[in-house]
């Protein structure tokens, strides 16, 4: 079983003022260092237990790839240690060691040798690799005749031919077309079910939330947060919106969810309610019943333009439905400090049985990346129950009407027996 233990890990690159400085440092090592250390990662501590799946998130340049390279041993750490038990496979760069002039089969052998396999092992795995890559007879054609999708499929098949104890994946999930993406993701899930420890870097919220037990957030070369995937992802999300380092608050709600609130607070959300037709507050909603989402907004400083948006998410954080007042051309303009606004969104709950959360955003434009007055995850949580409708599955209620045609066939039993 594979486990990873990262202790006080750090990586620094040496920066020399001139090319000659390095030479001088090499020739007179006792005269002291002539370089500056540029730290890209520092004080990273975490453990991944056997069989656990951990997601790694962070903005570009936060040090995710460097961390993975340190763990796989491609790059040498400047300080700290990485210990792991079990065989590691990394899906960092697919197709390394491929040569265009050789056939797919020969390239499989080459790439596997680079992974440390011997020819007998490769021959044993070959049928499986061929079958998974689904490139058919082209396996004996030169690689240069392959489409890039075919090459990637072959590379993925080679890299995952054997189930590793630890699998490290760097956004390699997007291999080939939608069908193969699904298939490759399914293989990773399969490994996970069979006990492979997983470390995944992805920007795909769904990938992280649906497969990981835990998430780590890297920010500016340090481990900013680790915890449940949705909590970490919400925080990451808020962090992205708040690049200038505005306040981000996370608080535990009585429901056990972690509410993340961030923003510059020119306008704030004062109250959120989910109401029925008679104006009574709801937290359990019957499938198909009409509701009103009522949001009170307090304007605290003069604002040129204000857009309120809401987004209903399922427990995986997948968006079910979202809308904002910009998209309905109802953005408000020239707001004064002290104004109190009440927004009402009325809609029927055409959702399946589950619990959902509503995120709210107060922005100046369509996207919260421009100006983010307030972003609130888990602004409200509600449950959808189904006691009156047909017992359907899935997350949307499409109210299918079923009609059946069944022509009468008369079977003559005495004729059948003859």
């Amino acid at each position: 079983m594979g486990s990873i233990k990262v202790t006080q890990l750090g990586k620094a690159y040496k920066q020399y003022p001139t090319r000659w400085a390095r030479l001088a440092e090499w020739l007179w090592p006792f005269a002291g260092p002539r370089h500056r250390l540029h730290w890209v990662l520092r004080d990273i501590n975490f453990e991944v237990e056997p069989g656990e799946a951990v997601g790694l998130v962070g903005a570009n340049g936060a040090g995710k790839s460097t961390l993975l390279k340190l763990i796989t041993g491609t790059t040498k750490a400047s300080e700290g240690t990485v210990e792991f038990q079990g065989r590691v496979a990394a899906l960092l760069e697919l197709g390394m060691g491929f040569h265009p002039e050789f056939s797919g089969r020969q390239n499989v052998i080459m790439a596997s040798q680079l992974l440390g396999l011997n020819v007998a092992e490769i021959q044993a795995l070959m049928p499986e690799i061929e079958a998974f890559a689904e490139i058919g007879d082209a396996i004996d054609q030169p690689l240069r005749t392959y489409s890039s999708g075919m090459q990637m499929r072959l590379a993925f098949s080679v890299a995952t031919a054997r189930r590793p104890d630890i699998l490290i994946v760097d956004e390699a999930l997007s291999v080939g077309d939608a069908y193969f993406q699904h298939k490759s993701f399914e293989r990773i899930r399969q490994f996970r079910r069979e006990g492979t420890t997983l470390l995944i870097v992805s920007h795909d919220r769904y990938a992280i939330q649906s497969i990981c037990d835990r998430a780590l957030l890297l920010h500016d070369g340090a481990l900013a947060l680790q915890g449940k995937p949705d909590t970490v992802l919400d925080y990451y999300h808020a962090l992205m919106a708040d690049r200038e380092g505005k306040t981000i608050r996370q608080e535990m709600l009585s429901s056990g969810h972690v509410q993340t609130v961030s923003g510059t607070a020119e306008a704030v959300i004062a109250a959120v309610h989910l109401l029925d037709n008679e104006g009574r507050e709801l937290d359990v909603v019957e499938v198909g019943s009409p509701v009103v989402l009522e949001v009170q907004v307090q304007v605290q400083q003069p604002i040129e333009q204000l857009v309120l948006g809401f987004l209903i998410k399922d427990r995986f954080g997948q968006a079910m439905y979202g809308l904002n007042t910009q998209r309905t051309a109802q953005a408000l303009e020239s707001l004064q400090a002290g104004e109190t606004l009440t927004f009402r969104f009325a809609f029927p709950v055409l959702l399946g049985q589950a619990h959902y959360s509503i995120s709210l955003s107060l922005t100046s434009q369509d996207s919260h990346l421009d100006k983010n007055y307030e972003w609130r995850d888990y602004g409200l949580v509600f449950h959808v129950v189904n006691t009156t409708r047909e017992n359907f599955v899935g997350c949307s209620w499409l109210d299918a009407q079923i009609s059946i045609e069944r022509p009468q066939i008369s079977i003559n039993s005495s004729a059948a027996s003859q």
Partner: protein
Amino acid sequence: MAIGMARAVWNYRGFVLGSVQREFQTRYRNSLLGAVWTILNPLSMIIVYTVIFSQLMKARLPGVDSSLAYGIYLCTGILAWGFFAEVINRSQSVFLEHANLIKRLSFPRICLPLIVVLNAGVNFAIIFSLFLGFLLVTQNFPGWAVLGVIPVLLIQIAFSIGLGISLGVLNVFFRDVGQLMAIVLQFWFWFTPIVYPLSILPKSIQSLIVLNPMAPLMTAYQGIFVYGRWPDWISLWPTALLATALCLLGMHLFRKRSGEMVDEL
């Protein structure tokens, strides 16, 4: 550490041998004659040096009667030097050439210079066997003294590996090394008795050339093939010691700098 390195290489022997084989195949892929070219090329070289120099230009080695002697002398030196230069040239750039692989994949990097040496070794083995065949056919085969080639060759290989790895590591940090070595190799070739016999030089320069670590190796090869005599073992000692020192230096540099190397590529 050295044992760990050896074990890592052993685990990756499939990759090393496979790479040697593939590099060989790549060269003649998509050609009609294929592997025949591996023979035609060196064969033409041997013929050019022997026939043209001995028969047409009537070049003679001082003190030897055989008309082929100078051709054999020349071939011996050029073949051995070719092997040496190939190892040096390829290994000084091997880490730069494989920067992509090194930066992206975790594998024992020491395999790369090993592949270079093995590749050059295969090339040399082919051309050298052709040369031996040529000597047999022309009845110039040196007899048992030919076994003396083995220790000399081992010293040469150790010398070139040690120098090659050291230069290879240095070249990653200081790209001038590659440029400089191209020039150095030119001068080095002409300061080594390959095209000319040592005896035609003035005494003062002869004593200088003895300082050249490649000179005793060349003299030994030429002694074997032209005169059929065993190498003067004592003359080989300084080069053997230097080769050991360079191997240690190369390993030291590699171990100390291989982590930093990845950052620099």
